[in-house]
């Protein structure tokens, strides 16, 4: 057997203990390969992933990535052979490229717990949150949560074209770009001069140069037509933009946040089903004995770093240390299972919620010695 430094041995022992707790809760242990196909992950997360994951290659299989997390491999394995409902646990190293901060680990152990079960989503959300909370309870961490599903519902409910909603949905996870689009669509920022000139031109393609490359002349003409149609649309009404901004700035203890969201929902009925889901989740948490009065809800939580979480999102962090990553985090990722499922003949996906703990951080913070 290979020699392990005491520190690593402790981390692995802590990981094994955490995993055993999830096994006791009925989860089946799954393994995942360390090398995963880069193409599939890049199609899912986009080229930005290259800044966060290590890429390697050989001449036969092409580009491979050192797994940046377990989510995609676990969903793939489940879709190929799993029966539903299912719950899984795993532990192992993940690899994260670090180009900004040398102090951050580029290799660390994650222990995960995932539930694939559509019977009672509120109960499944609450169970994942409660089990991770118990696991990190002695560390005195601060819990924060959000709900991307409410933001998505708010976008759906805007009084504007499907194309504009699709653009906003696509950039929900890029707040600066999202804001710029809202400004444009609501008429708060003026149309760029070049766009104005293009739309005013009788023959925009005059002297434009030869058609080269895969994007065809048809596509250029099609987009000009789409831009003309968009320019003819009325702006998104100011009161809807104000409601959206009010929604994004909700930051309160969970029961108060729910009250505020219900107030906003009076004028924004599209979010009612999503806010009701939050209410049911809160009750399910209370039923598990969690003191919901102390939990913080932040509507914008998870928007910058958790693409493909499309409902409940949460994290347990060390208070006053924004430089440290979350000790535990997770959320609901139904949309990701639909994307992965498209490739595997299961486009309907699976209702899925889960989370991870970093045993290395648990030990560093003085837990489970």
């Amino acid at each position, binding site marked *: 057997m290979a020699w392990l430094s005491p520190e690593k041995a402790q981390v692995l022992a802590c990981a094994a203990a955490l995993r055993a707790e999830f096994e006791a809760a009925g989860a089946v242990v799954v393994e995942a390969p360390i090398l995963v196909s880069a193409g599939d992950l*890049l199609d899912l997360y986009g080229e930005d992933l290259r800044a966060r994951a290590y890429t390697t290659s050989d001449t036969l299989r092409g580009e491979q990535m050192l797994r940046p997390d377990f989510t995609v491999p676990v969903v793939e394995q489940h879709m190929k052979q799993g029966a539903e409902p299912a719950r899984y646990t795993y532990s192992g190293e993940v690899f994260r490229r670090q*180009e900004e901060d040398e102090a951050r680990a580029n290799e660390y152990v994650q222990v995960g717990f995932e539930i694939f079960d559509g019977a009672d989503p509120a109960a499944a959300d609450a169970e994942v949150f409660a089990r991770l909370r118990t696991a990190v309870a002695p560390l005195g961490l601060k819990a924060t949560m959000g709900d991307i599903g409410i933001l998505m519902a708010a976008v759906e409910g805007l009084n504007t074209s499907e194309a504009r909603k699709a653009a906003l949905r696509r950039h929900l996870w890029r707040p600066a770009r999202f804001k710029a689009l809202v400004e444009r669509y609501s008429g708060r920022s003026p149309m760029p001069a*070049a766009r104005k000139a293009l739309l005013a031109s009788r023959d925009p393609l005059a002297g434009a140069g030869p058609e080269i490359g895969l994007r065809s002349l048809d596509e250029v003409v099609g987009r000009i037509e789409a831009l003309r149609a968009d320019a003819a649309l009325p702006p998104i009404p100011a009161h809807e933009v104000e409601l959206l901004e009010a929604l994004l700035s909700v930051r309160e203890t969970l029961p108060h946040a729910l009250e505020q969201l219900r107030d906003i929902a009076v004028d924004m009925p599209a979010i009612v089903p999503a806010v009701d889901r939050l209410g049911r989740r809160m009750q399910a948490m209370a039923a598990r004995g969690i003191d919901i009065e102390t939990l913080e809800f932040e509507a914008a939580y998870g928007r910058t770093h958790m693409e493909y979480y499309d409902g409940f999102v949460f994290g347990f962090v060390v208070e006053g240390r924004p430089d440290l990553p979350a000790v535990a985090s997770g959320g609901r990722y139904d949309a990701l299972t639909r994307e992965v499922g498209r490739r595997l003949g299961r486009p309907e996906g699976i209702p899925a919620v889960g989370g991870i703990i970093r045993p290395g951080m648990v030990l560093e913070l003085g837990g489970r010695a």
Partner: protein
Amino acid sequence: MSIKLGVPSKGRLMEKTFDWFGQRGVTLSRSGSDREYSGKVEGIEGVELVLLSAGEIPRELNAGRIHLGVTGTDLVREKLGQWDQRVEEMAELGFGHADLIIAVPQFWVDVDTMDDLDAVAAAFRARHGFRLRIATKYHRLVRDFLRERGVADYQLVDSQGATEGTVKNETAEAVADITSTGDTLRANHLKILSDGLMLKSQATLFRARRAPMRDEDRRVLAELEERLGID
């Protein structure tokens, strides 16, 4: 017992670097035949000339194997993470000017800004079934720039040369490359996006922050800085 100065080993970049130092009383030259990659330094004691490929100078500075090096800002920022903690810009040499830009076909009259490029990338993926391809050799710089501007649904494809030809050859839809006059772009029916300038680069003298130095080396460096007129 000397400080090492890395200089590009061939072409105009080498000649202009030799000129720049020569005008300041430090004569750099290749020793022996034209084919031999070793050089000499006259006009100052204790400086050793190392002739290297311009692309390898950032790596050698980062490793501290050379103390000083002349290369493009573009290469340093592309190849070194947290470049400003690894090297110090001592002097811009006033040649080797090049802009790192993003360009698309001229006939894409509907695309003028990065926002347009992002919208087109989404539509392109929906229609063609794969992410819009941008050919480049500056992977890190381009990726950072596109992330900052909120562009999604693209992929970078590696192109180490003749990048402007990739669109016509249908191996990419757009290019991210350096240009000085824009002539090659125009000849290949490409145009620069109005907000597509990522970086203005020029030949620059860098100092490795982590290269080991003895007191003697520090004295030599101070003398060289004085000779070159660097504060």
